[in-house]
């Protein structure tokens, strides 16, 4: 699977994976977690990577984040090869490409207040106290929190949804170009999840942020994403606009995935027949 999306705008993709492969060595051979995957992330769009557990979507994300070396292939950022950059260059890349992970409970240091957590991330930026406070206020504002309600609190005093929003605010303080959300909303309740997705939607619409949204939940992809990529066993099996992939799937795996999703009113009917 190496064909590219033909939606390339004039400026080209912000971030792309080119023929990326990841193999893990196991006793007696290799497991190919990501198999020759090419995918482009276009500026100001939300791209969802959908797949079951073990499909390689998180491995792909880790490689894009440069947290894990690739076995072969390239990671391109703004037209530059960043697959093997080091030191200051890599740190610059890590400022531009930020991530929010699944578990809002373990991504905090429980002994640090929210304010301290947010300030710590900015340690290298040498901002004045005043500018820093201003920045914290702006970024918390993006996610619908007020500094007065949040900065003095410790993680255990926040709800799961609030924690995840603080994590998004932390990522935003770096003024990133790309935000990578790896199952960032799967541990949240439906109502909080919707608010978190609305935050991402607003960031895309208002700040032009590029979002890579990794999820196993097609419903969330349907609500948020502009484009969808479906992964199975390390391969991209289907890709296209959200409408095309979800409402007119071509691939058998995508169809099966869609059929297994319990939907609120459809499943009721299934049950009555059965």
């Amino acid at each position, binding site marked *: 699977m190496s064909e590219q999306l033909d939606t390339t705008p004039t400026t080209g993709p912000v971030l792309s994976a080119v023929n990326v492969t990841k193999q893990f060595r196991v006793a007696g051979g290799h497991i190919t977690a990501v198999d020759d995957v090419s995918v482009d992330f276009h500026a100001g769009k939300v791209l969802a990577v959908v797949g*079951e*557990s073990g499909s390689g979507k998180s491995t792909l994300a880790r490689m894009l984040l440069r947290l894990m070396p690739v076995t072969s292939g390239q990671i391109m950022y703004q037209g530059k090869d960043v697959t093997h950059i080091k030191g200051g260059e890599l740190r610059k890349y890590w400022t531009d490409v930020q991530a929010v992970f699944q578990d809002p409970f373990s991504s905090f240091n429980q002994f640090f207040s929210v304010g301290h957590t947010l300030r710590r991330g900015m340690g290298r930026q040498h901002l004045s106290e005043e500018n820093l406070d201003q920045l914290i206020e702006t970024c918390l504002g993006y996610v619908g929190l007020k500094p007065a309600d949040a900065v003095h609190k410790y993680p255990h005093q926040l*709800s*799961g*949804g*609030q924690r995840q929003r603080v994590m998004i605010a932390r990522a935003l303080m770096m003024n990133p170009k790309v935000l990578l959300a790896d199952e960032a909303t799967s541990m949240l*309740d*439906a*109502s*909080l*999840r*919707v*608010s978190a*997705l*609305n935050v991402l939607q607003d960031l895309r619409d208002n700040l032009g942020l590029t979002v890579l949204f990794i999820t*196993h*939940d*097609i*419903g*969330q*992809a*349907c*609500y948020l994403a502009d484009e969808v990529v479906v992964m199975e066993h390390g391969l991209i099996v289907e890709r296209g606009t*959200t*409408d095309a992939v*979800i*409402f007119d799937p071509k691939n058998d795996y995508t169809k*099966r*995935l*869609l059929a*297994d*999703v*319990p*939907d*609120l*009113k*459809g*499943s*009721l009917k*299934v*049950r009555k027949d059965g």
Partner: protein
Amino acid sequence: MSGVLMRATNVTAVYAADSGKDVPAVDNVTLEVPDGQILGLAGESGCGKSTLGNALAMIANPPLYVVAGKMEIGEETIDLSTLAKGANEVHRGYRGATVSLLPQGAMNAVSPTLRIRNLVVDVMRAHKRDTTKEEALDRATDRLKMLEMPTRVLDQYAHQLSGGMKQRMVTVVSTLLNPQLLIADEPTSALDVSSQKALIEMLLAMVEKKIMRGVIFITHDLPVLSMVTDRLAIMYAGKIVENGPTEELVNNARHPYTSALLSSVLDPTEETRTKHVLGIPGSPPNLGNPPSGCRFHPRCKFAMDECSATEPSFLYERDHAVACWWANKHAFETVPMEVNQA
């Protein structure tokens, strides 16, 4: 008690806090499970649904105390209170045999150094000390065959099983003693959709084959509940606010909270593609100091004067119960979904 498997009345469970002030996580809840049916218990995180599950499974441990409540199940009436001396010993015989709890994340609590067969023997022996290995394994093998699951899992270690298989396996083990009621706490939350479906199908088969006579299925995932349950109870801030047949409740929500939860569900449909859900404004209340009157009123779009003044009592419309002032004034009307969307 005809047609009713379990009736829990006036259950109140509190967490003892350092400040000396108890936090009631479950406040005077009355709940019924009809015979042969699956009851869903839904609500946001922290609404007390797991605490209620623990209270009904009689496994409350300090700092959680069940201060009041009794449970009628089958022929028996059990005092759920954990305050009396020796209450723990009294309850011991019921656990696993009368009411079995499948706790959240149970599949991750399986010993990594023992084969599944050892777990089976341990569980059986915990209740009947003289169970022989053969008896225990025979029972487990029969059960697995009955549910069309591979019997090889008994010889495997937990890490050799996939997440979905592990979860189905612990579900089978937790019902080996043929409990009357199974309380399953978020059994599907950590699974992907295909494994979810397999577990749900297995649970339905277990109820059909009368391995247990009823299930309380706790989760915040409403689509899963709509697939598996016969009735739904919606919980908010320690209280049940609405209780009715699943289909009725999904199509005609009578409580604004239920309606808000339902509209937050993102099904992969064309409607989801275009709608903008607002979510529920504000955050769940502090249970140590809940709002006056109806506990949902600070976040409710239909709040009226009486909502903050008096607590609404249950209004019964056929077998659909709702505690809401708005519903009281609008008999048999469905809460308009539009208020939850922009």
